[in-house]
């Protein structure tokens, strides 16, 4: 089959690789009909996530048809059309039973690596470094999916692939970010980063009863899309002082909740941004927590900071004093996908939301390396790249 493989910083290639096979009795093989490039894939592309290895197949947002099942698969059948969650969960451990699916104890074969770095390991993830299990990803024509009865969500309606594909990650991720804000009717929620996760966080915050959502970015097309989702747009590159601007927009109180949908590679301006970036380039620190610092600084007293943006390592100049002084609550983590997927599919089926509105680029898998480049540099107003692994029949 063809698959997109990582070879180094800004070096991804589509290669011919062996087809995946069933490795465990609860596995299934999915023939992928649609897959996407996630903003968090750009962290891999930029080489800032440790334990990625040359030849690793990337991609964790995918869906398709089950073409093979292991001997212990009971519910899922060959021919089922499924969306696959990017977190892999066993469904049997303490964490899965608490609906903390992204913290599954039994899905990361390299748990010892994550344990050495983090104390304990989260669940395995598709195509997201060996620390998270080293599972081959879904920017490919086929993928092996463990725990077939637990993860893959069966789609029985005639919704198009593009309408349900984002149940694999970014829609539930944006939704959990909003849910983590503990929104009360009329609350003001500010969202840093209007990429795909930010867009879904904005729409989810509205669905959960936010009175006002403030969207912060610097790219006009993203701010426009945020406005379409019901948000008030703030172009931070045009504001003299973002914290003051947010104060003015919230009656002087500050947002009730702040969502950092940016993560470890924040863009920004000012001296601390340049210093973060220099440190990251020199390998002194992994993460550039520019957006997170602003979230903490601007959040109202007793408010919540929700972090769906990915962080990998250590933070410098983390304003913990401000967090403590204002009694902030922090909520974060990989998305507990399995908890949200059925509920959000319902919302799509009822027509409450059409996730496909964020798609700006439709490419064949063969063109995925260009897709990464375009997405990274935000060329051609790129917001979301969706890939068809079978578009070019010569690939088959």
């Amino acid at each position, binding site marked *: 089959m063809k698959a997109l493989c*990582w070879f180094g910083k800004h070096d991804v290639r589509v290669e011919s690789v*062996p087809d995946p096979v069933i*490795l465990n*009795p609860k596995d299934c093989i999915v023939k992928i009909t649609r897959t996407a490039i996630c903003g968090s894939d750009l962290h891999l592309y930029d080489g800032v996530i440790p334990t990625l290895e040359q030849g690793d197949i990337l991609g964790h947002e995918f869906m398709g048809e089950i073409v093979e099942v292991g001997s212990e698969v009971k519910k899922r059948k060959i021919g089922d059309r499924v969306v696959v969650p990017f977190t892999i969960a*066993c469904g049997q451990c303490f964490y899965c039973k608490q609906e903390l699916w992204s913290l599954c104890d039994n899905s990361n074969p390299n748990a*010892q690596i994550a344990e050495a770095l983090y104390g304990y390991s989260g669940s*395995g993830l598709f195509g997201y470094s060996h620390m998270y299990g080293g599972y081959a990803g879904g920017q490919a024509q086929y993928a092996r999916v463990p725990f077939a009865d637990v993860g893959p969500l069966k789609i029985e309606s005639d919704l198009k692939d593009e309408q349900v594909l984002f149940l694999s990650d970014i829609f539930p991720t944006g939704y959990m970010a909003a849910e983590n804000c503990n929104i009360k009717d009329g609350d003001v929620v500010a969202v840093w980063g209007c990429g795909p996760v930010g867009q879904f966080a904005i729409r989810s915050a509205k669905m959960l009863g936010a009175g006002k959502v403030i969207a912060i970015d610097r790219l006009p097309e993203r701010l426009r899309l945020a406005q379409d989702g019901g948000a008030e747009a703030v172009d931070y590159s045009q504001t003299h002082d973002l914290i003051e601007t947010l104060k003015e927009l919230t009656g002087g109180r500050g947002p009730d909740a702040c969502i950092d949908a940016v993560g470890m590679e924040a863009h920004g301006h000012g001296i601390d941004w340049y210093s973060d970036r220099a440190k990251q380039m020199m390998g002194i620190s992994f993460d550039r927590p520019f957006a997170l610092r602003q979230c903490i600084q601007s959040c109202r007293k007793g408010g919540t900071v929700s972090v769906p943006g990915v962080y990998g390592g250590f933070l410098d100049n983390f304003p913990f004093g401000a967090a403590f002084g204002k009694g902030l609550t922090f909520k974060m983590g990989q998305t507990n996908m399995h908890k949200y997927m059925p509920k959000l599919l319902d919302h799509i089926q009822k027509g409450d939301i059409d996730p496909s509105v964020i798609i700006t680029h439709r490419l064949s898998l063969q063109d995925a390396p260009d897709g990464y480049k375009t997405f990274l540099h935000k060329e051609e107003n790129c917001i979301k790249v969706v890939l068809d692994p079978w578009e070019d029949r010569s690939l088959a």
Partner: protein
Amino acid sequence: MNLNSTRANGARSGNSRAKAIQPWAAVLGGGALAIYGLSRKSLGGTALAAVGALGAIAGAKRSTLTPTAIHVQKTFTIDRPAEELYHFWHNFENLPRFMKHLISVTTKGSRFSHWVARGPAGVPIEWDAEVVDERPGEYLVWCSLPGSAISHRGSVEFRPSTNGAGTEVTVALTYHNPVGKIGAAFAKMMGRDPERQVREDLRRFKALMETGEIPTVVGQPSGRRSSAVKVLHSMKEPEATQQLRKGPHEVQAAKLKPQFAGVQSGGVR
């Protein structure tokens, strides 16, 4: 050797560990004392430094590079009833399914068993063991028979966790003075990182008991690997897991079905 409880076993293991640690404690403690003494920059300080340095030297002399016993203890919480875990473990033939260094264990009655382990340079090492103490659903202690190439003692204890969610499983393994060249080589192999080995064995046991399988990515596709990455992968833990998987027919499954029992026929690919 007959023990009345695992508590006694634990105490004994604790002692042997204390003995192993003692010389190092003297080296570290003495060294710290010496540094502190020197930092005082006074007559008393110099005396303190001298005492510390002597202690450190004495400690270093007492410690030898080859350990006389390797002792490891690890605990995991497993979300299954103690009875079930106890019974799975008590059938020693199940152990190679999650213990990396074992090739097979054959039981002879309920007390005796024959163990075959991966030895250095691919030469298997064999020994016989006997269950020396047990309390169903609570603990199990076994010991190699006198005259074995490996002088080995192991115990596993099952306690309901305080929050009622599952069972706390504590495994304690001790390898004593190895006998002969093979024994010494095996001890060396085990001694490289015995903590990690036992921890990862237990992690596999947990996954096997909770989900019926052990997570793996060995055998999945990838793009061309550089030779450095290939070497790295050949050294990695999951490879050993795969070796275990290759021979499920060699071991008898107690309650769980053997892994790799085949797949339903797939679609056209």
